């Protein structure tokens, strides 16, 4: 039995930016507030300052002069700052919508990865320095002192937590991460939550900043509780809520081009799903062999209640399996995520560049641009049939008074470069550049745009790791 194709066509754009959307189409994504990012950064800095000061004020000059004093102080400082950074890392990926909208999921993950070596190194140094310091104070050997410290149950548990963190740190080293199957790496990585929870008791009970300082204890506990609450709420609670509320199921799998299929899902109350063009969801298809993985895919069109569409290229086992999805398969979603939206636009007009399957995000972003906005769209592909959804893109561009250029051919003959781009786009200084596609392509176009004088805050990219 094959379901009749869903009438998923091209929707009509609104006349101007501020016009209310047609009710059949869902409310559109909420506007991000850049001030949120500034406030968040200042708050993070504030917390760092407070944490450092708490450690300083718990120390005295004579304590430093005592045997082992310097090592103990350095160890305490390393522990406090390391833990604080670990909490920040957790917050970065806890998918708090208000922050995610401004920075974008990929930006947050990039920051998360950048910070990552610091907490683990600091916490390992913390353990070592404190052992050295206590050994000096008690006038015993290092191993003996380590043994003594481990007799405290809180310390023992914290040592286990540190071991988990070190393992996670090691497997995240690029060379090793490449060798592990992604799901194995991910499963081990999730143990970080457990490690942080295990480490908490020893901080409160033994930390010199907290022993005898009830206010500091309360504040630290509150920060931990808030972080845990945010994680529970936004990483677990909200996605479950969305899934249950919308009850998405696959209704059709439609081929779009060589190796590319669109998966159309239907659900309830999609008119309440607030997402902007260019955003993506993490999709978990509850089919055998696929239910334990969640992958990010952009919407390839704005929601047309009761339908959602994603378009996927089959490059690996998982994406190829998507082409075999059976209608009726339930879908769990997380999102919407992404700052690759019309709200990022700074300049009057836009240039949209996509390669291959990158057209999906571009196509839904295009839908969000108002009539008369005159976007220029460049689609890059090897062969003309690789430019999937091009008919829809053409129609969308026409209605908006823009122009579409399809650049096909091998790289040495047809490329978007410093010569061809200015020829195709004469008013580059008036346009934001949105680029979407494979990582290499995005990097190249971004560099090209910078070279041609487009400032960084007018370049927006969404890179697909394929």
């Amino acid at each position: 039995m094959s379901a009749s194709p869903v009438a998923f066509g091209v929707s009509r754009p609104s006349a101007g930016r501020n016009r209310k959307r047609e009710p059949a189409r869902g409310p559109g994504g909420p506007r991000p507030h850049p001030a949120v990012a500034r406030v968040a950064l200042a708050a993070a800095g504030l917390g760092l300052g407070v944490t450092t000061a708490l450690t300083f004020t718990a120390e005295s000059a004579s304590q430093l002069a005592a045997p082992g004093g310097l090592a103990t102080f350095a160890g305490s400082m390393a522990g406090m700052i390391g833990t604080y950074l670990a909490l920040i890392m957790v917050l970065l990926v806890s998918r708090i919508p208000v922050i995610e909208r401004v920075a974008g999921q990929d930006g947050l993950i990039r920051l998360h990865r950048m910070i990552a070596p610091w907490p683990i190194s600091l916490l390992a140094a913390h353990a070592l320095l404190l052992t050295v310091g206590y050994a000096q104070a008690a006038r015993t050997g290092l191993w003996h002192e380590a043994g003594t410290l481990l007799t405290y149950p809180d310390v023992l548990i914290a040592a286990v937590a540190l071991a988990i963190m070190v393992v996670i740190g090691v497997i995240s080293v690029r060379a090793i991460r490449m060798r592990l199957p992604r799901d194995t790496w991910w499963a081990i990585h999730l143990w970080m939550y457990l490690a942080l929870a295990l480490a908490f008791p020893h901080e409160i009970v033994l930390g010199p900043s907290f022993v005898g300082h009830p206010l500091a204890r309360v504040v630290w506990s509150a920060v931990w509780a808030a972080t845990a609450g945010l994680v529970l709420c936004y990483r677990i609670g909200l996605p479950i809520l969305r899934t249950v509320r919308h009850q998405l199921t696959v209704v059709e799998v439609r081929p779009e081009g060589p190796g590319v299929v669109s998966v159309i899902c239907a659900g309830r109350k999609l008119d309440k799903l607030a997402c902007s063009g260019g955003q993506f969801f993490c999709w978990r298809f509850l089919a055998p062999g696929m239910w334990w993985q969640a992958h990010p895919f952009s919407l390839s069109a704005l929601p047309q209640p009761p339908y959602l569409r994603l378009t996927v290229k089959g490059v690996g086992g998982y994406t190829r399996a998507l082409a075999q999805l059976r209608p009726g398969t339930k879908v769990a979603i997380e999102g919407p995520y992404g700052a690759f939206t019309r709200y990022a636009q700074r300049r009057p007009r836009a240039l949209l560049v996509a390669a291959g399957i990158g057209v999906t995000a571009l196509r839904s972003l295009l839908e969000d641009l108002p009539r008369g906005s005159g976007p220029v769209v460049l689609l890059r592909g090897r062969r003309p049939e690789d430019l999937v959804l091009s008919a829809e893109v053409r129609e969308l561009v026409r209605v908006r008074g823009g122009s579409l250029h399809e650049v096909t051919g091998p790289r040495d003959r047809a490329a978007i470069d410093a010569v061809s781009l200015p020829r195709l786009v004469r008013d580059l200084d008036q346009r934001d550049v949105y680029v979407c596609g494979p990582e290499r392509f995005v990097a190249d176009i971004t560099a090209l745009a910078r070279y041609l004088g487009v400032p960084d805050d007018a370049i927006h990219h969404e890179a697909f790791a394929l």
Partner: protein
Amino acid sequence: MRRAPWLVLGGAVAGFLGVLGLHRPAGSSALPHATPPPTAARAGASTRPAAGPTAAAGSAAAPVTGPVVPYGYGELDTRVTISGGRITAVTVPVLKTAEQFSRQLATQAIPVLRNEVLAAQSAHIQAVSGATYTSAAYARSVQAALDKAHFR
């Protein structure tokens, strides 16, 4: 964004200074104060020798501080305030331990040894007998405070 590092730095400095500003030095909080010495010792304190009040030319209150003295399991604050040649305040030591073990030991020792730690002043002593201290540790001990202040 370009301004990001400055925002973080600014917040950090603000937080740091804020905590420093609000911080009360140790000794006024932390462990509960010892209960006052029993009345017998108080009675001893009230019968001051006649020589006492003639200490008119005594110096103003001056804390003779010992910095935190390491005693093997952790460190103890020693703070003896001398006023008019007499010890007028012995701060209940704030135990800053390097190990929880010593903190447990110290807190359990208080109720066991007569429910409070006797203060050197109310005991009217001229010397302290204890394990031999090194010359360095002497400088920070109660004996040193007695030597310095009581006998000039």
